[in-house]
C-alpha cells in the first residue's frame, strides 16, 4: 500500500527509471551489440569465425590456458580470502582491524601498480633473483614471470580482496554465538566449523566465487604484464587480434564467446543464488 503511486509520482519515477536505461542502450548496449554483430558478419556472414573455436589449436590453447588460470586463481583466492575474512572478523581489537585495513588498501590500489610491483620483484634481474643469486642459492635467474606461475601469482594477489570482502560481509551476518553453541553441545572445533559455520557462509563463498571467476575470465592487465606474451589469456589474445593482425572476425568472435560464457555462468548461478545479492543490490 505504501507502494501505491499517484500519477504525479509515477511519472517522476518512470522518468528516473527509463532515462538512464535509454542512455545505457545508446552508449553501451548498442556498442556491445556491434561486437556480437561483427562476430557473425566479418569477414563474411555466417558462423565461420565460431568454427575456429574447434578447428584452431592456437585458440583452443588460449581458451584452456584461460580456464586453467581462472579456476586456479578462483580456488586460491577463495581459500586465502576465507582465512583472511574469518581472521579479520574473529580476531579481537586492532589485529582484526589491521587485517581489514590491508585488504582494503590492496583493494583500492591501482591494478597497474600491483602488476608493476610484481614485475620489480620477479623479473629475471628483479629483486628476488638478485637476492637469491647474491646469497649463492642459485646460479641462473629463476623464471618467475612470463609463465603461468607469474600470471596466477599476480591474479591471486589482485583477487584476494574481491574474495575476502564479500566473505567478510557474509560472515558478519552469521550469529557469533552459533559456533560456541555447537561446541557447548559437544562438537569439536573442526566439527563445529564444518557443520555450522561453513554451511552458513556458503552463500558468501558462492557470491565471492562468482565475482572472482567472472573478473578473472576477462582479466587483461595482469596477464599481459606478468605473462609477457608467453602465457596468453583470452582478453590479451583478443587485443592482439585487433591491434596487431586487424582480425576483427576472430577478435569479435572471441569477445562474443567470452560475453556469452559469462552470461551463461550468471544464468546458471541464478538458479542457486539471488544474483541481486551477489552484486549487492539486495
Amino acid at each position, binding site marked *: *500500500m*505504501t507502494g*501505491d503511486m*499517484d500519477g*504525479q509520482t509515477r511519472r517522476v519515477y518512470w522518468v528516473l527509471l527509463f532515462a538512464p536505461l535509454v542512455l545505457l542502450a545508446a552508449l553501451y548496449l548498442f556498442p556491445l551489440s556491434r561486437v556480437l554483430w561483427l562476430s557473425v558478419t566479418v569477414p563474411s556472414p555466417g558462423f565461420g569465425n565460431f568454427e575456429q573455436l574447434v578447428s584452431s589449436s592456437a585458440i583452443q590453447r588460449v581458451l584452456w590456458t584461460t580456464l586453467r588460470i581462472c579456476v586456479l586463481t578462483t580456488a586460491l583466492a577463495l581459500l586465502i580470502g576465507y582465512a583472511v575474512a574469518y581472521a579479520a572478523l574473529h580476531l579481537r581489537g586492532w589485529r582484526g582491524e589491521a587485517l581489514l585495513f590491508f585488504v582494503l588498501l590492496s583493494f583500492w590500489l591501482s591494478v597497474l601498480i600491483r602488476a608493476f610491483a610484481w614485475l620489480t620483484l620477479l623479473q629475471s634481474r628483479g629483486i628476488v633473483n638478485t637476492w637469491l643469486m647474491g646469497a649463492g642459492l642459485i646460479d641462473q635467474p629463476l623464471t618467475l614471470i612470463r609463465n603461468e606461475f607469474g600470471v596466477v601469482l599476480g591474479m591471486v594477489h589482485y583477487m584476494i580482496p574481491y574474495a575476502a570482502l564479500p566473505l567478510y560481509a557474509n560472515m558478519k551476518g552469521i550469529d557469533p554465538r552459533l559456533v560456541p553453541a555447537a561446541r557447548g553441545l559437544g562438537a569439536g572445533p573442526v566439527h563445529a566449523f564444518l557443520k555450522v559455520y561453513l554451511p552458513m557462509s556458503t552463500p558468501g563463498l558462492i557470491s565471492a566465487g562468482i565475482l572472482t571467476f567472472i573478473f578473472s575470465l576477462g582479466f587483461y592487465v595482469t596477464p599481459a604484464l606478468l605473462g609477457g606474451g608467453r602465457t596468453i589469456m583470452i582478453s590479451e589474445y583478443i587485443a592482439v587480434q585487433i591491434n596487431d593482425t586487424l582480425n576483427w572476425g576472430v577478435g569479435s568472435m572471441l569477445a562474443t564467446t567470452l560475453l556469452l560464457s559469462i552470461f551463461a555462468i550468471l544464468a546458471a548461478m541464478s538458479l542457486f543464488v539471488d544474483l541481486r545479492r551477489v552484486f549487492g543490490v539486495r
Partner: protein
Amino acid sequence: MSESIRLDHLTKRYGGHLATDDVSLEIPAGRFVTLLGPSGSGKTTLLMMIAGFVRPTTGRIVVSGRDITDDPPERREFGMVFQGYALFPHLTVAENLAFPLKLRKMPRARIEQEVRRMLDTVHLPQLGGRYPRELSGGQQQRVALARALIFNPKVLLLDESLSALDKNLRAGLQEELRDLHARLGTTFVFVTHDQEEALSMSDEIVIVNHGRIVQSGAPRALYDRPRTRFVADFLGRANFVEGIVTASAGTAISYEAGGIPLRQAGPSDGPPVRPGDAILVGLRPEKLRLARDEPGGATNRTPAEIALVTFEGADHHVRLTTPLGPMQAVVPSDAAGPQPTRGDKVWLSWDADASVVLHDDR
C-alpha cells in the same frame, strides 16, 4: 479549522482482492474517530485513501462538501502521523517542523516562531537542534505529531501511531493526544489494531473487517451492545453461549444451552429469533458472578470448575469449564472470602439483561 469527511461508497481493488468494499462513512467535524480492525482488515487502506496516497477504484471522498477524490495528497492539507513516524533523518527536529512552513513560503521569522510554539506544545522545547535518530521513541512520536499539526491541517490522520511504544509511554501519549484534540478541535482520524487504545481515546469507533465497516458508535455503546460475534470478541473479552430458543416474547427470550435453561432480556441488536432457532449470546466476563454455593435466586446459573486463575493486579481472570462450554470470568482480586483456586467447584450466575444476542458472523 475543523472539517467533516464523508466517504462515499469507497472500493479499492488490488487485482482480485478487495481491500475495501463499498465503504460509506460520515466523520463529523471536530470528532476523534478511530478505525479499528485486525491487520489486513482494510483500515489502513481507508486512511491512505483519505490521505490521497491510494486512489479508490470507485467512490468519492468529500471534505466539508468539496469532492477531493482527485486531489493529490499535497493539496489536501491533511496532517498525517505515520507508522514509524517517517521523520526526515537528514533534518533536525526544528528543520523537520519547518519543512511544511517553508513549502508554504512563510517568512523565516514567522517559521522560527511557529516552530518554537509547536515544540512547546508537545513539551520538547529544548530539542530543536537534535536529529531524529538522537531522540527516544516517545520524543520522535511527539515530533511527528508536531510536524503534522504545525501547518494547521484541516484533519489529522494517525496511522498506528502509538503501536511501537512501550505501555507506560503509550498511556501518557494517549492522554496528551486527547488533550491536544480537545484544545485544537481538529478532526482526528486514528487507525489502530489496539482495542484498548480505541476504547480509551475515541469519540467514535469504526470497526472494520474484511474491507467493510462492521459496526460503529461510541466506545461505551459498542462495548455494551456489540452487534456481532466479531465485534464482541475484538473489543474486550467475551463469553459466547450457543443455545436453542425455547420461547420468545419481544426482547425476553428463553433458551437452552448444555441442558441448562437460560434467560435473556433487555435491548439487543441481534437477529430476531423464534422458538427452535439457534441463538448466540455474548456475555462480558465481568458481568459473571462466582459463588461457592448454588445461588438460588439467580436467573441464569451453571455449575463450573476453575481451570486456570491469572492474577492481573486489580482482578483475577478465571477460566472455567462449564456445561455451556469453556467460560471466562473477571472477579475483583480484593473480594471477600476464599480466593479462586484451580480445581474449585463453583457456580456462575448472571442477570438476564447482562447478555446480548449477537449475529454470528464467524
